[in-house]
């Protein structure tokens, strides 16, 4: 009998799978299978009967119904995405500003960091709902100056709606910056400070070095933060779209509800989200030919430092020469 021989490498590989096994089972049972089933449901009219589910093939009818027959879903979807884009921009800019401030040598940095991270703990649907109802989520100053009234009077409704919803929930929007702030901070700490020094010597001021050094160096962090914030906005808090899908799932199938419609809606939502994520990826992608190595290797740093030193000396000498 030929003995089954397994090489050491293969055996280690097998052991890797053993450790991964729980996750693999879960991935198949609670992700892949439901994912495929969900596509299947979305092509059917699903009726819940006493002896199980009754499925009637309807093809793309559920999808056409969503866009033609349903009164609220498409509007909610477009509202969500216009809101999300605006909020994403606010979060990305705000968290960058805070991170850059906290990156300065300050006392009590830990306290600030703790406070800016605090809302992560608090954000849950019902709590946010209470706060919105209380009117506690708008910045007090914006409220008292009636900015919303001005916005609504000045701008066409297409722009005014997302803006006024942004202002009335501004703090909530800012609350999504807890994680992005920390991600930016780690990114900022990794930028080589010699670069700033070198650029100063070349005559760049803070503004220029922000655009030429800080921002390009943070490009991957912007992407991570964008993806994180978008996914978070899409899955938590006061999301009308999910609430509608949830509600449709349990409503009667003759009135534009049921498992089939709900699945189709979920897929439309997921595909829109995927498009948004891909757009984000393309926007933050590094352009070819414009790549600048920001995080330099040790050797490069050494060379840079040498150059900087030399430049400094040259300048000093140059100045002396001039004086003579």
């Amino acid at each position: 009998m030929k003995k089954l021989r397994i090489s050491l490498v293969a055996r280690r590989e097998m052991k890797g799978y053993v450790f991964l096994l729980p996750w693999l089972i879960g991935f198949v049972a609670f992700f892949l299978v439901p994912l495929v089933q969900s596509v299947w449901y979305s092509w059917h009219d699903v009726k819940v009967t006493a002896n199980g589910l009754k499925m009637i093939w309807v093809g793309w009818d559920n999808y056409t119904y969503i866009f033609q027959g349903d009164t609220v879903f498409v509007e909610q979807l477009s509202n969500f995405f216009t809101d999300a884009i605006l909020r994403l921009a606010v979060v990305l800019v705000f968290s960058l500003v805070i991170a850059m401030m906290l990156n300065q040598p300050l006392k009590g940095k830990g306290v600030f960091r703790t406070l800016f991270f605090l809302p992560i703990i608090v954000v849950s649907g019902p709590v946010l709902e209470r706060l919105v109802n209380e009117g506690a989520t708008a910045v007090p100053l914006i409220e008292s100056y009636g900015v919303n009234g001005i916005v609504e009077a000045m701008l066409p409704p297409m722009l005014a709606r997302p803006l006024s919803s942004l202002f009335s929930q501004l703090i909530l929007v800012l609350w999504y910056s807890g994680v992005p702030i920390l991600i930016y901070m780690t990114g900022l700490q990794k930028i080589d400070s010699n670069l700033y020094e070198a650029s100063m010597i070349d005559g760049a001021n803070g503004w220029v070095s922000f655009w030429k050094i800080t921002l390009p160096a943070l490009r991957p962090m912007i992407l991570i933060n964008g993806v994180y914030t978008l996914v978070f906005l899409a899955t938590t808090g006061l999301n009308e779209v999910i609430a509608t899908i949830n509600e449709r799932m349990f409503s009667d199938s003759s009135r534009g509800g049921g498992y089939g419609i709900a699945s189709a809606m979920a897929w439309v939502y997921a595909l829109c989200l995927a498009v948004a994520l891909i757009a984000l990826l393309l926007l933050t992608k590094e352009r070819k030919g414009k790549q600048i190595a920001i995080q330099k290797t040790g050797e490069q740093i050494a060379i840079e430092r040498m150059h900087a030193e030399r430049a400094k000396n040259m300048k000093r000498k140059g100045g002396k020469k001039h004086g003579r």
Partner: protein
Amino acid sequence: MAGKPTLHKVKKLAIGGYRQMGLLPKTALYVMLISLCFVYVYPILHMAITSLKSLTDLLDPSVQWLPHEITFSNYTQALDIMGFSEHLVDTLLVTVVPALCQTASCALAGYAFARFRFKGRGILMACVLLTFIVPFPVLMVPTYTMYSDYGILRTIWTMILPSITGQGLRAAIFILIYRATYEQIPFSLDEAARVDGASETRVFLTIGVPLGLPAMITSFLFSFVWYWNETYTTSLFMGNASLGSSKSISTLVMELAKFEDSYLTYLERAGGWAAKTGGANIQNEAVTMAGTILTIAPLLIVYFCLQRYFTEAIDRSGITGE
């Protein structure tokens, strides 16, 4: 002429040079940070202060920040309305158990991704990220029917099964944290253990678990907070108003979601004298805020005691590139 150097010195002190930040920019920075912090935390402060106001203070528009007297009766009422003690037990059950399961299962997955080379590792890692990106509603209907087929709806198994197999709430983030943590532990350690004849399980238990402990604490805390705050899945799988069975599990956050209704029935129950005092049947927002504070209070306590583990999670996840 003599004043010039001192002027320069003053200027340098105020505005600062390249190395040292001057006093003026520093003060400006502090003022800006503190005011931004205030704006940021404003809703929580507002909530806390409103919850302590008495009815007269609440109706008096001149009282905004400092109530005349601190009223704790709002809290006792809110405790009563929410059935706090009884739902706290439920909440802890559906929070701590899945969080523990998630901590363990993600540790295994992260360990596998970091310490072993196997075929399809890259693709599987991409699958992990996919589970993060795909929104839950896509999986909602089939998962619901699956649970109802197995007859585990409205039991804690709907929380345990996904979390013990690494498909819990935002499990992908935890797998990333573990992967980054385990990649940083030197491989020579487990090589040595293996040479001494330790099995892979033993290597994991004696090296992986102790050295991965900080990541485990972080994962547990985040899972705890996120499960605590979760409403969509818990209300979908745990409680269903239409069935209204007595043994359905309801968390504090779910109780908060229907606080207004519970408040109304509470007022009606106490309505005997309330009706006589004339129109006292109004919902007092201080009580609602007290309820909200009570819901998040355990989280706040955990956060302020262990905030280091929360804020260090980002560095630990390794997503910022190493």
